[in-house]
């Protein structure tokens, strides 16, 4: 750390609280602002889908099949065209945002709960607890995610619940790995010892002293895994084992549109771009959060 020893600019007391400082940095972080904005738009579209969608996303009009979107010569009656069953693509895209976001959020929450618990316990206690949890992490990492997810979904049948649970139960490894090392590091810092000496109970130490200081890493991993879950769901759907139709999931839309790839490529391009943008936005938010909350703020 040349910087520290040479100028020690960090040693000068700051005027702002950590939160104010992070907020100030966040507003200047272009990736975070861009990703946040895109994400906010997608979330808003998802929330207000019932108001914004021109049609019922489930309404089939077999006489209006695969009408092209307006920029490929279609009409404004269906701005993004219709799918193979004559359903309005824009409406399905809007409702699909709900599904992707739901899958991402719930799967990431489940895996965050599992991974954080294991990671924090391993990092805090070390020793045998750590050995056992490290072993679990290794076992989990050795299992090929896509194959296991496929096998389980094939067994239980694809439904939103099954897909979300399977992904949630499979994606906890990174939470555990990252939080384990973060907790290990925080554990050795003396404020934890100070809290212990001041008679704080273990749950209180975990809640007050460990969690707030690993929270930024948790958020970063959570965004990564949310994006990961969304992409995996799309891949499962692509292989025919994702969320079940007629649910308008983006992954499913790509899978359905795949059939016409060579002739009506917009059928996969539109949900593909939406998926790409969503995942991109989430990742940029994650990167941004990391940059903004890292103490040295390396940028």
């Amino acid at each position, binding site marked *: *750390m*040349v*910087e520290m020893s040479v100028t020690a600019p960090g040693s000068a007391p700051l005027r702002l609280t950590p939160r104010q400082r992070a907020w100030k940095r966040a507003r200047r972080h272009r990736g975070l602002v861009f990703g946040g904005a895109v994400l906010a738009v997608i979330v808003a579209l998802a929330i207000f889908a019932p108001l914004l969608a021109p049609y019922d996303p489930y309404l089939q009009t077999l006489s209006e099949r695969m009408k092209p979107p307006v920029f490929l010569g279609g009409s404004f009656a269906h701005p993004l065209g219709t799918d193979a069953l004559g359903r309005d693509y824009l409406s399905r895209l809007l409702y699909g945002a709900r599904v992707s976001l739901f899958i991402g959020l719930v799967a990431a929450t489940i895996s965050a709960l599992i991974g954080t618990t294991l990671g924090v316990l391993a990092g805090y206690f070390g020793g045998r607890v750590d050995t056992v949890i490290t*072993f679990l992490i*290794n*076992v989990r*990492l*050795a*299992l*090929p*995610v*896509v*194959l*296991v997810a*496929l*096998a*389980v979904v*094939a*067994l239980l049948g694809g439904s939103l619940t099954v897909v979300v649970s399977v992904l949630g139960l499979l994606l906890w490894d990174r939470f555990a790995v990252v939080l384990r090392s973060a907790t290990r590091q925080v554990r050795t810092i003396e404020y934890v010892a100070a809290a212990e000496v001041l008679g704080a109970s273990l749950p209180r130490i975990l809640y007050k002293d460990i969690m707030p200081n690993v929270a930024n890493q948790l958020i970063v991993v959570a965004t990564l895994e949310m*994006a990961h879950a969304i*992409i995996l769901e*799309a*891949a499962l759907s*692509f*292989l025919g084992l994702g969320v079940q139709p007629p649910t308008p999931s983006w992954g499913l839309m*790509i899978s359905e549109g*795949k059939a016409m*790839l*060579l002739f009506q*490529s917009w059928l*996969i391009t539109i949900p*593909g771009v939406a*998926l*790409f*943008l969503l*995942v*991109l936005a989430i*990742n*940029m938010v994650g*990167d941004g959060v990391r940059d903004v909350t890292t103490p040295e703020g*390396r*940028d």
Partner: protein
Amino acid sequence: MLRFVVGKIVMAALVALTVSIISFSLLHLSGDPAVAMAGENANDAAIQAIRETYGFDRPLIVQYGDWLFSALRGDFGESYYFRMPVTQIIADRLQITMLLGLLSITFALVLSIPLGVAAALRPNSLVDRAALFVSVVGQAIPSFWFGLILIVVFAIDLRLLPASGAKSWTGFVLPTIVLGYYATPAIMRLTRTGMLDVLSADYVRTARAKGLPARKVIFKHALRNAIIPVVSLAAVQMGFMLGGSVVVESVFALHGAGYLAWESISRNDLPTMQALVLIFSMFYIAFTVLADILNAWLDPRLRVA
């Protein structure tokens, strides 16, 4: 070093054993194998006959013990679907997947390490931004979609490369790009942050104070240290890639082990499926052990301890 390695291997063996139990029990619950074997047009009697012939009526623990014991001798039984020894079927396909995996990891390393180093040397420069772009896009782009787009552009539009198959090396170009790109972001980011950390390390400052030329400082002193965690990551990514080859092999009609695994799941070909999950896990475990050994060799603190 020997103790370090032996320890790693024993841990790996325990992990492998657990994985075998998980994969066996997990996959053994996925539907009635007899129906799957019988196929689309089979009737009841046929199914009952199969059930008895293949011992699906035995307790699971017996079936597991039987399977594991044979597996240790390299015998994964006979494929329900192909009626051939699983080992023979897999050995054949694994070559393709391994080749694809090796090409992909090479592609990923060749793309990401120089990019990561360049990005770390000039933070916030154009190179750094380009590297960031590559990694952000790589993380966000669904591989099956990417594959389809590449087929459209390179195979159909430009007619430069074949759309499918493994007839010649050209058939591997697109799958390698898709699969390799999947691993690029993580490796590039780790190289970049690793280099940034190392470049601000005291010993790099010492090396500069010695008056070594920049090239030597960067490659001999910095990269050597920054590469250590990258080795582990590359091993992990290689393992993930083999598992992730399912999608890519399906898109490009490469009949490798990943595609075989997916097909086996859909037709309840238990012996093949179990063998593949186990083999993919073993590969992952072997890669990580290999990486540990390589790390021990790269990092004297582990070697001599």
